[in-house]
């Protein structure tokens, strides 16, 4: 390949990478945790909120009574299933009609349970929304709300990320055979970081291409559909998703008491997709003209179209299977292809091993962007060095180094601390969700501010220690809950994996903090990662 192309694509890689890098770090770090959204949700749920499951059909009375008297259940009321049992609780959210399509931050959450007398008790809940918040950080690159404009920001970042991937490969291609798996540890630290950046980038390239393209789709699908409906489908797309035809007033009023029992509904899904493992029932508009119940679940050998799984859509009165388009294990080939795009983003295939693989690939991705920024800084340092005198460094490298350290470590520390807080906030504050958001952004902005005040070198060490401490607070909170049950915190042996993972993360961060402390004291003085340069300059 001509050197011209390499040079041009190096510029493309540099600029797309530097613009999108920090946003992508947040998306990948929070995204890696979102892989384990459900275990973290369970980990953060106080024991008082956990109900003992009952045989599945015992919840029918709760479902029937609640749905007969509660017309506004939003997108549907959900019962969670565990094996052949059900959690005796019906949950639904009612969204702010003015809120954005994906924005649940203003939604109101309700749950219905039966009291001792068998009467339905509906209560409004204040869920912590901890895992939803981490998910939103990952969806909109660190912004607080999953709204249209924020998703467009994410879409532009993802598009830049795709171009950065292609340009990075173009730059590396001519020397790929020579450089691939060449990991040159030695005095040239920049070479070593570049080798590591390359090998991680190439090895996880398919994962990154999938993430970049699907993220662009998640950001812009509404707009693409709208344009295509005008130009390609001539209005048939919107028509296909129009509401139920006919006058709802003319439809016969349905009595939820005539609905099939959960066991029968689940059985219909299992017959349609043998091996399907149900995890929930979602009832929608069951008194209206088009009543549906979705039997959600996963097929252990199939792929799931969504992170939560797939579903069979059933008429709860007649038992007719209305749609198997999203039913894991029983999809038509075209639907399977579409679902695979989602599954490949959300790791909803292949079980636990794939979840861990995605967790590690997500962390490796975050590291890739962090390392890319460091390389940008180091490249500009090298160009400045001449003669024996200490050169005056460019301001932009110092700013970029400080921003990288502050944003990346601030994000990690903030997520860790807000997670640990899940064990202390319940019962002490009213608005859990606001506290989680506040703790995250408090730590995040304080870290960014600290990094700019102190400079990258000094701040890196203290922020790494802070991140290690915040992350260690996760297992320590559980430990305290176990040792002192009166403290308000608690421990759950089944979710020890969350604590152990956080502990491993904290230890890794301690190691990084110590290594960085050595570097800033003993490393080359002309580096932004040296504290000595400042001291020399000050004397």
């Amino acid at each position, binding site marked *: 390949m001509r050197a011209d192309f390499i040079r041009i694509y190096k510029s493309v890689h540099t600029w797309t990478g530097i613009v999108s890098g920090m946003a992508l770090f947040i998306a990948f770090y929070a995204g890696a945790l979102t892989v384990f959204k459900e275990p973290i949700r369970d980990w953060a749920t106080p024991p008082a909120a956990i109900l003992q499951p009952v045989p599945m059909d015992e919840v029918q009375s709760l479902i029937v009574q609640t749905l007969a008297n509660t017309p506004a259940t939003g997108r549907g009321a959900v019962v969670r299933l565990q094996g052949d049992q059900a959690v005796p609780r019906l949950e639904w959210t009612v969204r702010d009609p003015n809120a954005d399509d994906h924005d649940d931050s203003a939604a109101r959450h309700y749950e219905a349970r039966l009291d001792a007398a068998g009467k339905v008790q509906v209560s409004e809940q204040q869920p912590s929304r901890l895992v939803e918040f981490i998910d939103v950080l990952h969806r909109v690159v660190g912004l607080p709300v999953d709204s249209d404009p924020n998703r467009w920001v994410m879409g532009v970042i993802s*598009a830049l990320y795709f171009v950065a991937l292609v340009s990075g490969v173009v730059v590396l291609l001519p020397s790929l055979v020579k450089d691939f798996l060449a990991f040159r540890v030695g005095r040239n630290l920049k070479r070593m970081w570049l080798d590591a950046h390359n090998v991680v980038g190439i090895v996880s390239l398919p994962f990154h291409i999938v993430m970049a393209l699907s993220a662009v789709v998640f950001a812009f699908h509404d707009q*693409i559909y709208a344009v295509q409906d005008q130009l*390609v*489908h001539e209005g*048939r797309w919107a028509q*296909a998703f129009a509401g139920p035809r006919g006058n709802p007033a003319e439809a016969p009023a349905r009595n939820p008491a005539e609905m099939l029992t959960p066991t029968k509904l689940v059985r219909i899904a299992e017959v349609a997709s043998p091996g399907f493992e149900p995890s929930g029932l979602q009832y929608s508009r069951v008194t209206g003209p088009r009543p549906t119940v979705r039997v959600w679940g996963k097929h252990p050998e199939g792929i799931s179209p969504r992170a939560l799984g797939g579903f069979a859509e059933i008429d709860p009165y007649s038992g007719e299977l209305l749609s198997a*388009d999203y039913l894991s294990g029983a999809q038509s080939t075209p639907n399977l292809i*579409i679902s695979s795009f989602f599954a490949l983003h959300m790791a909803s295939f292949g079980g636990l091993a794939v979840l861990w693989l995605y967790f590690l690939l997500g962390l490796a991705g975050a590291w890739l962007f962090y390392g890319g920024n460091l390389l940008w800084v180091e490249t500009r340092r090298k160009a400045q060095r001449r003669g024996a005198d200490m050169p005056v460094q460019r301001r932009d490298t110092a700013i970029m180094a400080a921003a990288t350290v502050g944003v990346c470590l601030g994000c990690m520390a903030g997520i860790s601390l807000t997670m640990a807080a899940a064990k202390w906030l319940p019962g002490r504050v009213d608005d859990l969700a606001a506290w989680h958001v506040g703790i995250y952004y408090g730590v995040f902005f304080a870290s960014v501010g600290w990094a700019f005040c102190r400079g990258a070198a000094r701040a890196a060490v203290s922020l790494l220690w802070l991140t290690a401490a915040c992350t260690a607070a996760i297992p320590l909170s559980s430990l305290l809950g176990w040792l002192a049950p009166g403290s308000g915190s608690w421990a759950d042996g089944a979710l020890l994996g969350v604590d152990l993972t956080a502990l491993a993360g904290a230890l890794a961060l301690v190691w990084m903090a110590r290594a960085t402390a050595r570097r800033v004291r003993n490393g080359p003085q002309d580096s932004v990662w040296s504290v000595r340069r400042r001291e020399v300059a000050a004397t």
Partner: protein
Amino acid sequence: MPGAPTESTPARRARPVPIRPDWVSKTLAGVLLGLSLALTCSGLLAALLIGMPVPVSGQLAMWLVPPVWLGVLSFVYFFSSGLRAWLWLGGVNVLALGIWWLVRPGGVA
């Protein structure tokens, strides 16, 4: 790009003409003509999948847009100049639109 000077053909010289970065015009060509090409390709796919229910073929057609669009944007810098990028991509767009005009549902064919 109308009005731009026609480029002199680099008739077999000893050293190839340097590739012009032409950041603005190449990037615009990739973003605009890449998007129009992607939408046309999605129209072609939808025409190909005409027997399928619209909710399914429509989703497949939507998923085709970002890879084509960003693929064009990513490789646009291989053109030797911005003008060539516009001419080639414009030509491919016209060609794709022509095919779509022929095969579109309810069209000529």
